[in-house]
């Protein structure tokens, strides 16, 4: 709560289409890039005028040179449509860093990072941190990133993860690429294979981000297998920094604010409706 929030007119340094309806937007925002940590997010103002009025929350896909933020996003409505029009040199009103962070396993552990569609967004940054000798201190072979997509046209960022040394394991609903089925089914088969013989296996750690039904399925798997699990959830967030109380989510017997108590929650905290 003591960290400053930086607001700036960030320069767009590039925007590329990475898959059907999906884009990677690069912004120059040194003060935020220096501070932001895996799991946190920023607010992006999509319009100069008042419709759409409110900013939209986005995870950080990747931080480059402590200076640039890459945002992986899907066009789903008016705000993201506006964003997709942004060209190199334009400026977007942004502020952050906001929200809490993913935690790193204390010791050696096997981490599954499960992204449903653009739910993959926070996991490049997290994977990079996990395998960083100074931060997560994990081995590359212990970090598994899973991507679930509707079909092969919706797959993105494969090369990035390959280059990082944590190649994507991909599931498509229609089997047009990789495993055929939901990413949660893929996860289930991977969990079944665990513990991997012959070594005494490291404990498991789950992270997930994506559509609600997917998160719920992951939470159930985590419960069943008694694996610690952190979920990054989506919510309507007018402000993103705890001043409006608009982003309440149900937790056991109470409400929490998705933007300041989250967006990362322990799976067992959340109440599914």
């Amino acid at each position, binding site marked *: 709560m003591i960290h400053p929030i930086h607001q700036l007119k960030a320069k767009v340094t590039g925007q590329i289409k990475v898959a059907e309806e999906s884009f990677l937007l690069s912004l120059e925002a040194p003060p935020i890039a220096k501070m932001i940590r895996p799991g946190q997010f920023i607010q992006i103002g999509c319009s100069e005028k008042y419709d759409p009025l*409110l900013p939209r929350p986005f995870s950080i896909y990747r931080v480059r040179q402590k200076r640039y933020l890459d945002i992986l996003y899907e066009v789903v409505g008016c705000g993201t449509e506006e964003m997709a029009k942004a060209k190199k040199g334009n400026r977007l009103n942004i502020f952050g860093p906001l929200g809490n962070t993913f935690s790193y396993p204390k010791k050696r552990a096997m981490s599954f990072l499960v992204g449903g569609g653009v739910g993959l967004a926070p996991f490049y940054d997290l994977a990079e941190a996990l395998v960083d000798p100074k931060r997560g201190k994990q081995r590359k072979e212990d970090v598994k990133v899973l991507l679930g997509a509707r079909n092969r046209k919706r797959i993105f960022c494969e090369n990035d993860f390959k280059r990082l040394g944590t190649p994507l394991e991909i599931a498509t609903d229609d089997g047009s690429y990789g495993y055929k089925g939901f990413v949660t089914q893929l996860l289930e088969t991977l969990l079944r294979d665990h513990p991997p013989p012959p070594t005494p296996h490291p404990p498991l750690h789950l992270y997930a981000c994506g559509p609600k039904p997917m998160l719920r399925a992951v939470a159930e798997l985590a419960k069943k297998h008694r694996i610690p699990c952190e979920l990054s959830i989506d919510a309507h967030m*007018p402000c993103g920094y705890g001043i409006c*109380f608009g982003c309440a989510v149900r937790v056991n017997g109470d*409400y929490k604010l998705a933007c300041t108590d989250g967006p990362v929650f322990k799976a067992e905290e959340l109440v599914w409706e």
Partner: protein
Amino acid sequence: MGVDLSVRLGPLKLKNPVMLASGTASYGEEISRVYPLSRLGAIVTKSLTLKPRKGNPPYRVIETPSGMLNSIGLQNVGVEAFCREKLPYLRKERATVIVNIAAKRIEDYAGLAARLDREKGIAGIELNVSCPNVKEGGLEFGTSTRCITEVVRGVRKETRLPLITKLSPNVTDIVSMAKAAMDGGSDAVSLVNTFLAMVVDIRKKKPVLSTGTGGLSGPAIRPVALRMIWQVYSALKCPIIGIGGIMNTEDALSFMMAGASAIQVGTANYVNPKAPLEILQGLESYAKKEKIRRIETSVGSLRAEPSYG
């Protein structure tokens, strides 16, 4: 030449006319991550009730064209926790603090005021007689001149702190509501609170908000809010705090010209956390450019006859 940005609202003197609206700045901690609270004229804290309130179930908010609808349900920590946990921080930050209170009975309003009167570091109390969100909440008070007067009287007895009555716009005659507040002993009126409104999810055939209706705020309501401020100023010339969709310096100036001595920034804090600061700087530049030495001289400077009604 320095510009004097201070304004006076009856007994309440503010260093500048830019305030944070209740419910859009929580208790200040988050905003101080963006800029020092002491820069502003005042912060009005989230409506307090006697007991803490958890607030309404989701969805609590939905965007509308140039506006947003909310039904937070007066989520707040309660007056005791506020005094214990929130106020010390605000004092430390040297913020000018106006505490907004809400209740469903006159005794509770009075009780809240009495409790706050014992604390140091409170510059004034704002009475929320108009929150449209909570079933047992304030709407009834805010739509009847008699009730407004009674609530204000009840609170007036319990405190010498400057008293601001925050009016509901969901009324036929805003002038008589303002008059009722002043008659009851209010030192100023702030207007407007949100407009009772609704958005429907046609797929679910249900209102989007869990409570059915909510309060509309943002630029969408600005022209209506501005009209109301002008009506009250024209009729009563009482101290007014203007609220409703103020996003930038031009908006703030138009409210001041229409008769507001100070303004509150609400929804704009969500869109642009630095909006209040930018407005403050904008007012100063405006004054310099126009060679205005005291910003207060702009209040009510609109050249027009009220032709409504």
